[in-house]
């Protein structure tokens, strides 16, 4: 017990008060002494975003990236750990937008940690994964959604916590099939990421026999944004009949303007309107209200996707250590990729990693701003192994050449 507390005090910088209180109570109450002590040191490397344009002033700007989710998970891992002699410590490396994340990695993380949670751009995630290639390191990517990182550019040592764009597009596609929204009008933003989501949507359309009747590129002009009313009326006046307008605008630069302004009255789905997400404030099923509450009390705001991903990353490590009683990275990595690994993620199904690309299989929430509309996989989409694998790249389609 004494050693657990020592480590706890040294490493846990934020919730020391709580763990201290807990620690002393445990000492007073528990007669169970863990036999030995395992300490798991986890590094977190996050690079802050360049300041984004905030279309909606009602949305609070969240500047920290996933940190608070990671801290909640460390705290929970340590509560469990105290019962069985395991302790978890998180060391955070937060670098500014213009700094070189690789340098920080080389100087402070390489050779010193076996476990790294990353909250980086896709390019930086890949760069760090390549630097870590010959090291005893498991990388838990809590930020990217890129399909390339899970296919041709996949890396053996990386696990991806957030659902890929393909998984999200498939979730949307399944719901569209259920609602018989077979004709899509696709509107794509000017950012490269928007094109990637549009590609995922096209893959989905092909899989589910959905027809993309028209595709238009939204090109930003100052005027267009100021006079959205007139502009969108004209922009959405197309010849073909369509059931839904599907928008790809990941940076939220124009998508919110579409609803209620289209020429024909049609629902908006995609990055705005009804959106496929890993986590959402409206989600309160399967015990989610419990973690939403815990997070909000500590963070003073709702949990976002990256918080959720960082939380899952560290909980996954905790679960693997608890089950294997080991902190050897190779053993943990193998266990996490095996079918014995099961993670509770407040989404109704047990979560696990796909051995072929390191992607966390998980249900996807289809949420409107104030209503949780559905959870994919949608009933009726079947799979011989697990229905969760109806979302995204299944083993036979995967382009990832990974050593399983």
């Amino acid at each position: 017990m004494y050693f657990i507390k020592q480590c706890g005090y040294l490493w846990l910088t934020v919730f020391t008060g709580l763990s201290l209180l807990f620690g002393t109570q445990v000492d007073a109450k528990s007669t169970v002494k863990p036999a030995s002590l395992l300490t798991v040191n986890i590094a977190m490397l996050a690079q802050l975003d360049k300041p984004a344009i905030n279309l909606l002033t009602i949305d609070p700007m969240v500047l920290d990236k996933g940190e608070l989710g990671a801290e909640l998970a460390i705290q929970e891992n340590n509560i469990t750990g105290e019962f069985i002699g395991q302790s978890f410590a998180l060391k955070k490396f937060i670098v500014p937008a213009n700094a070189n994340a690789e340098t920080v990695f080389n100087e402070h993380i390489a050779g010193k940690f076996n476990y790294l949670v990353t909250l980086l751009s896709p390019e930086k995630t890949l760069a760090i994964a390549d630097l870590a290639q010959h090291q005893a390191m498991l990388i838990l990517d809590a930020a990217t959604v890129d399909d390339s990182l899970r296919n041709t550019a996949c890396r053996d040592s990386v696990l991806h916590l957030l659902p890929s764009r393909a998984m999200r597009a498939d979730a949307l596609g399944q719901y569209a099939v259920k609602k018989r929204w077979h004709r899509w009008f696709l509107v794509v933003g000017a950012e490269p990421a928007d094109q990637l989501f549009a590609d995922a949507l096209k893959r989905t359309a092909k899989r589910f026999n959905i027809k993309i009747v028209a595709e238009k590129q939204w090109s930003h002009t100052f005027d267009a944004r100021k006079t959205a009313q007139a502009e969108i009326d004209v922009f959405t006046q197309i010849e073909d009949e369509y059931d839904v307008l599907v928008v790809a605008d990941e940076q939220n630069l124009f998508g919110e303007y579409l609803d209620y302004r289209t020429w024909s009255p049609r629902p908006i789905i995609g990055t705005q309107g009804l959106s496929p997400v890993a986590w959402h404030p409206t989600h309160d099923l399967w015990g989610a209200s419990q973690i939403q509450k815990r997070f909000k009390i500590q963070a003073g705001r709702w949990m976002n996707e990256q918080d959720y991903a960082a939380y899952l990353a560290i909980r996954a490590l905790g679960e693997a250590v608890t089950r294997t009683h080991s902190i050897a990275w190779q053993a943990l990595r193998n266990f996490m990729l095996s079918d014995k690994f099961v993670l509770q993620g407040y989404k109704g199904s047990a979560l696990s990693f796909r051995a072929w690309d390191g992607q966390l299989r998980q249900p996807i929430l289809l949420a409107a701003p104030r209503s949780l509309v559905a959870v994919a996989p949608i009933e009726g989409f079947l799979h011989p192994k697990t229905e969760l694998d109806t979302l995204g790249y299944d083993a036979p389609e995967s382009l990832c050449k990974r050593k399983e």
Partner: protein
Amino acid sequence: MKKCLYVVGLGVVLWAFNAEAETIFVSLEKDNSIAVVDPLAGKLLKTVAVGRRPRGIALSADAKFLYVAVSDDNTIKKFNADTLTELADLPSGNDPETFALSQVDKRMYVSNEDDSQVSVIDVDKNTVLTRIPVGVEPEGIAVSPDNKWVVSASETTNMVHWIETKTYTRVANTLVDPRPRALTFTADSKQVWVTSEMAGKLMILDAKTKQIIKELVFEVDGVTAEKIQPVGVLVDKKMQRAYVALGPANRIAVINVANLTVEKMLLVGARVWNIAFSADQKYLYSANGLSNDISIIDLEQLKVIRSVGVGTNPWGLAVKP
């Protein structure tokens, strides 16, 4: 002739359902109230407002008092079980989800989900005796019939914590499969039956060694493993049969205790949650969270004989003889 058949038929139905008159109280998580049901008549008698987000519900051993955990009001309310007039607020601690009552010494053990602890309350004096730290998100809680042990299951830590009632000390922790939800002691206090929602499993723990001694994985034809999420579990007094609610699989598994096999799967309402016996253990009642009803099961015939609509998100049940 036809009329006669109807009368005979009605007679058979009445004969088949000859439970002693009793009352079922059902907590309705999203209606802020409890439903009062007459199972004999198969009728919802009334709905009574109790407070915000009622979940855990139980009667005192003498059936004079009804306790309801109203989680979002951070208290457990005590009612006169006959009149349903409110008598007191118990100092349950934050976010009491559910609780267990000792039938021997009027102690109440409360799972405080947000604070990762179990509160011990003297229900007569209305005071907190102590709070015991356990794992993250404690939910299922039970007192052994011999009053020696309290077991608490923590959903995120994935452990069963053993608390000795003599000293209110946590003396052991058993690691179980992910998301343990509900647990119950056998009548002889020798075993604890625990369900794991994520692994779709039932685990049997030995109260002496605190180890898992047996496991049972549930399978239902035509239902994927992901939908089989065991929750409420009960073992009958004679320890012949046990019953496990399987959540979104919409079924209750009937288990032969002697050889630990599933005898039958009973189709009930959607997302079946907690279950309760009738006083004579001839009937089983289930709270079906998503179809907003309760199912009434005849345990001699092993048949679902009736369902009664009760309100939004029924969570738990208490049966008053």
